[in-house]
């Protein structure tokens, strides 16, 4: 097993230092207090600044703890910001796929729909924004579970509810499905919540690759799947492309 990573230890020490006393220190003070070369301390501070764990006062140049640290554990990306950043990609996904598009984020053990684009056939549809879906019975939810955007334990403990005969209700089934989703990079839920309905989703990643939400298409099984109930590969490709495009916009480098 590899030993501790020195730069992370040093970053932790800087954060502890900034959490003490007045909480505003200059570069010289930080490097002197920890016995670090100024260049090293500066590099770490800059990195911490880029992930919003540290802020630098514009006038004095002094460093202090960043707002993001105070909200660790709550969602770091505002849901309205997420909608605003993904709206063009979601529209493009709906236009290309011909299906309704939804974006979901975790909220108290459910999926909260934060954005919804109508299926482009001009039939009467109503906005689903604000509604909640079960995590274990929707592709959006399974993506959030598979990529650690929300904990799995509460879902397992609460005995997942069976909506149809296809709903994954056993721990074993769900655990295996989530493993496959992590492997494949996308999820489908075919008639797992409502008979005749399916959805396909992929993860939206923010800075550092952290999954902050899921985007997907939903509609009738006949349109989304082949005759054997398998999701249509071109549709999966469109969903994954849209997810990657939003992720790039949010600053996720590799996806």
């Amino acid at each position, binding site marked *: 097993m590899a030993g501790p990573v020195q730069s992370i230890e040093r970053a932790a020490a800087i954060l502890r230092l900034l959490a003490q006393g007045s909480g505003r220190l200059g570069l010289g003070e930080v490097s002197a207090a920890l016995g670090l070369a100024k260049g090293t301390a500066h590099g770490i501070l800059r990195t911490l600044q880029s992930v919003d764990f540290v802020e630098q006062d514009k006038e004095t140049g002094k460093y202090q703890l960043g707002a993001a640290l105070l909200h660790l554990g709550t969602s770091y990306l505002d*849901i309205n*910001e997420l909608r605003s950043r993904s709206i063009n990609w979601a*529209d*493009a996904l709906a236009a290309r796929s011909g299906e309704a598009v939804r974006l979901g984020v975790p909220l108290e053990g459910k999926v909260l729909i934060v954005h919804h684009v*109508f299926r*482009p056939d*001009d039939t009467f549809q109503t906005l689903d924004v604000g509604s909640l879906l079960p995590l274990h019975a929707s592709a959006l939810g399974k993506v959030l579970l598979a990529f650690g955007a929300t904990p799995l334990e509460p879902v397992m403990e609460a005995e997942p509810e069976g909506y149809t005969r296809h709903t994954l209700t056993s721990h074993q089934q769900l655990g295996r499905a989530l493993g496959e989703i992590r492997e494949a990079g996308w999820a489908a839920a075919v008639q797992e919540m409502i008979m005749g309905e399916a959805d396909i989703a992929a993860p939206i990643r923010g800075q550092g690759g952290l999954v902050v939400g899921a985007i997907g298409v939903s509609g009738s099984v006949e349109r989304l799947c082949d005759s054997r109930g398998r999701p249509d590969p071109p549709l999966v490709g469109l969903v994954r492309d849209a997810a990657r495009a939003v992720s790039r916009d949010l600053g996720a480098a590799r996806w």
Partner: protein
Amino acid sequence: MVERYVLSIDQGTTSTRCILFDHQGRLVSVAQREHQQYFTQPGWVEHDATEIWANLGRIVPRALENAGVGPGQVAAIGIANQRETTVLWDRRTGVPIGNAITWQDTRTDALVDELRRTTGDDFFLDRCGLSPTTYFSAPRIRWLFDHVDGLRERAERGEVLFGTVESWLIWNLTGGPDGGLHITDATNASRTMLMNIRTLSWDEELLGYFGVPRAMLPEIRPSAERYGVARALLPDVRIGAALGDQQAALFGQTCFAMGEAKCTYGTGSFLLMNTGTDPVRSRHGLLTTVGYKIGDEPTVYALEGPIAVTGSLVQWFRDRLGLIHSAPEIETLARTVEDNGGCYIVPAFSGLFAPHWRSDARGVVVGLTSYITKGHLARAVLEATGWQTREVIDAMNADSPEPLKALKVDGGMTANNLLMQFVADVLDVPVVRPMVSETVSLGAAYAAGLAVGYWPDLEGLRRNWHRAGQWMPTMDPARREAEYENWRRAVERSLGWMRS
């Protein structure tokens, strides 16, 4: 068969964008480049027309590359542009006479005041459908004549040409000094104060009034027509359309029937309603403008209500008050409370535009009590955009033969669900967001595609329009009326704050 596309150029206030659309009206690729803003004196805002033309030379190839498309696959070019911005250039060298003076530039304010005082609005309204403001181009030409030695004489000899930005781009695209086409379209010409709104030709009396020689003016052409082929950038590709950006958005939203309207929510907001083939003279503070003119078909007119401050109020809330980190967070903050708590903000930062046109108004926050939180202020910020929309719609309904049945919306603020629901609530009509949010570019593409037969007719374009979202009114009518009354009382308090 090789797929063909329409290329749209949106020459905007801050950047120039080039977008390729396919036959379904779907966006295929985008390239964009910002240009420099020159704030040379207080109230002056200029652009370098040479830089804008050079930027076009960079983004057109990039948009084609992104899509893997050759110039041979471009069926037509359509242009949408920032309106009223004034470019003068040397016919022989193609070099602009100084910087372009943009629509935001207020250097002509003293001149405009003088015009209104001595001549009165009716003289202008009867001819061009506009009353003088610093927006429009003619006072700028006059200002340049008054400040640049020998310019008027050179213009009279036909050595200096005038154009809004689409004229400048088309002239350069079609050869520049070497036989470039000097043309404008009726929507852009309708913003100069020089075109007769009924005949769509340069008005002798207005030309005489402003002292603008006819020799410097471009030929007025329909918004969609085969103008000619490009020689630079996209050799042999047909140029099929030009429209002012807000008219392009009206066209992109397929507001083809009388009474159909769109509002583009940006820094400011622009509401345009199709009023059919007769120009409607507003008695309620709206502008009469050309909506579009397709080939030989009758001219379609529009009423326009510009609102100065909508999105920029959210920016102010973010940058000047620092209560949010990003613009979309205003919705999160506003949702921390149930209502406005009795607080209203009238954002008359530089006076009020339509329908009030009161330059003596300044912003007010009213109804403050110790109960008010930043959440209530966030609500009041968003509601200000809703009520300002309502005031313009009321004016339109009073002027137009057809009352509004639904409002089509586009622009950045349409991502704000709370705001869009509020707009539906206060207008008491459905608010509809289309699937392609780039309505300005799409409108220019549609008009160009129509001109060259890429799309058959308006009905074909309508079929490309799809609803991406819709908000239905749910507000209790009694509450709507009470709130509107409060808003009107707040507006009253903003008036007359500036002493002349």
